[in-house]
């Protein structure tokens, strides 16, 4: 297992091509735009070596019997599912940010079980290839970006119906050595500081979409790949210190647009190639595994926001007010509700044909649906209690200026027991954690709210509920509502 420092060193060996505002970012390691995200991912490595955290951060490989980093594991029982959630909450509490590595973890699990099903039905050997790949990932403790979301163009049209055929990643050539793919993947969390990416289709597909039904693994620096780094709210503050808020770990996952311009993938790294009838179930598996996470990581982030709220109330001199206490209780209640759902969907998980364990799909979708609402409410309460100065504070440079700094320290002071700098720092943390880019991730990451509602209808067993009501109403079972 790699340490955080070994992970960071390993990134230096890659030739990942990343651009921001027209310029190539070189070197990646140490660059202010990227370093916070690298630091956050490094925590997933360091915790595996920390006796305090290793029970959650490591496990035993079902393939080799060796101790591995949990982020490279295939869930073997319900305990694995529960420990995943606990690990995510733990790391989010320590980073207050996205540490990115869950996406590839979920992708590995989804592709593992789906390739098993494909081989059973079609007689292919995708699962064996995936197992070989997994061994390589575990052995080298790699960070994998989970690459599902295509740009999608016209949302009313399928992959093969788009005006531009590249709006979903597709196979443009097959030969005896492998395949060549073209297209792009959007919103790629942690991609620029990963070792590899695991590509999956975005949605269910039809016969006409065959060329778009592709799953495969490629190094992030393979020829033909470029990454265009996304803007974040306040990203120029990454060149400052205090004004960033969360200086060490930043916010969200350092997302990018990954362009795949005729990229070669050898056959041993191809896990789906045209079997469109399995695209839907792969997406559903990935989505459930990923939605399971959000009551873990977002609960951890909300723990920090709740702590920041209590602290700023104290700095403001308002901590004793009953409405403040009541609002803090509400934040705790919402956070623990998110966590309950993640634990529940893990505990109610089940075994798949491959032997891998999988969270309960209905409850997993409830987790994410709640996240699209409760995080906004938690952050709303935080901003209410913090006060308007989180939106109007002068800059860090002025704070430290000889002439202006005195005025800022004087007029932004709160309770006399605390230095103004503490109030300033906490306000910046809140400003950056509760607005802009950080919020949108709770809405769309792991799928927009409607995607969960579709799953709730599908797995909600409505007919069973109708039968229950009809029975109590004295309506005979021969006359059921269909």
């Amino acid at each position: 297992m790699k340490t955080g420092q070994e992970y960071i060193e390993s990134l230096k060996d890659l030739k990942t091509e990343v651009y921001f505002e027209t310029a190539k970012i070189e070197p990646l390691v140490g660059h202010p735009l990227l370093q916070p995200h690298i630091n956050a991912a490094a925590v997933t490595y360091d915790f595996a070596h920390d006796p305090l955290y290793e029970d959650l951060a490591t496990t035993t490989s079902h393939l080799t019997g060796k101790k591995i980093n949990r982020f490279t594991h295939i869930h073997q029982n319900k305990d694995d599912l529960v420990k995943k959630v606990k690990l995510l909450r733990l790391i989010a509490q320590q980073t207050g940010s996205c540490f990115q590595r869950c996406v590839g973890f979920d992708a590995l699990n989804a592709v593992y079980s789906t390739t098993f099903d494909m081989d059973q039905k079609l007689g292919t050997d995708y699962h064996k290839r995936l197992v070989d790949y997994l061994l390589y990932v575990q052995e080298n403790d790699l960070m994998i970006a989970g690459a599902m979301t295509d740009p999608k163009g016209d949302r009313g049209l399928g992959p093969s119906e788009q005006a531009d055929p590249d709006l979903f990643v597709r196979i443009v050539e097959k030969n005896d050595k492998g395949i060549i793919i073209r297209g792009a993947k959007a919103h790629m969390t942690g991609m620029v500081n990963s070792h590899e990416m695991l590509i999956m289709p975005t949605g269910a597909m039809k016969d006409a979409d065959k060329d778009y039904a592709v799953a495969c693994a490629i190094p992030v620096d393979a020829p033909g790949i470029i990454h265009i780094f996304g803007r974040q709210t306040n990203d120029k503050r990454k060149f400052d210190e205090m004004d960033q808020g969360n200086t060490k770990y930043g916010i969200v996952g350092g997302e990018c647009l990954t362009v795949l311009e005729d990229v070669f993938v050898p056959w041993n790294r191809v896990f789906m190639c045209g079997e469109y009838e399995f695209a839907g179930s792969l997406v559903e598996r990935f989505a459930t595994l990923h939605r399971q996470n959000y009551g873990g990581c977002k609960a951890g982030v909300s723990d920090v926001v709740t702590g920041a709220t209590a602290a700023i109330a104290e700095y403001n001199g308002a901590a004793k007010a009953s409405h403040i206490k009541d609002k803090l209780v509400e934040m705790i209640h919402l956070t623990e509700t998110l966590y309950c759902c993640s634990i529940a969907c893990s505990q109610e998980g089940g075994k798949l044909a491959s032997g891998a364990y999988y969270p309960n799909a209905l409850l997993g979708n409830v987790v994410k649906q709640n996240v699209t609402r409760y995080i906004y409410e938690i952050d709303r309460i935080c901003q209410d209690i913090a006060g308007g100065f989180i939106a109007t504070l002068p800059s860090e440079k002025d704070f430290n200026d000889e002439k202006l700094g005195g005025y800022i320290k004087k007029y932004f002071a709160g309770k006399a027991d605390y230095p103004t700098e503490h109030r300033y720092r906490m306000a910046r943390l809140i400003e950056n954690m509760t607005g802009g880019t950080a919020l949108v991730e709770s809405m769309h990451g792991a799928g927009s709210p409607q995607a969960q509602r579709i799953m709730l209808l599908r797995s909600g067993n409505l007919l069973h509920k109708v039968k229950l009501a009809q029975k109590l109403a004295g309506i005979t079972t021969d006359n059921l509502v269909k």
Partner: protein
Amino acid sequence: MIKIGVKFCGNCNPDIDTKKLFLNLRNGLKESIEFVYWEQDAYEILLVLNGCNVACAEHPIFMGTSIIIAGETLDYVSIIEEDLLLEIERKIEKLK
């Protein structure tokens, strides 16, 4: 005539109608199979009927072969509810 032990889960929130499935199975195989309560008798095969894929039914200690239904799956392989009866019959036939 072989004997099959049957165990149901608690059916708190079932995706499939395991009672109907069992009655149809028993009806279809009554000439060749005797279905018995899992705790009462000796049997060659154990059939565990779970209403959903959470598969809560505790698996009794049993050395022989089991068939696990968990929602729309048979031994963890997806099968739609309408096809489950036929697939269980096939499986039993293979195990006989």
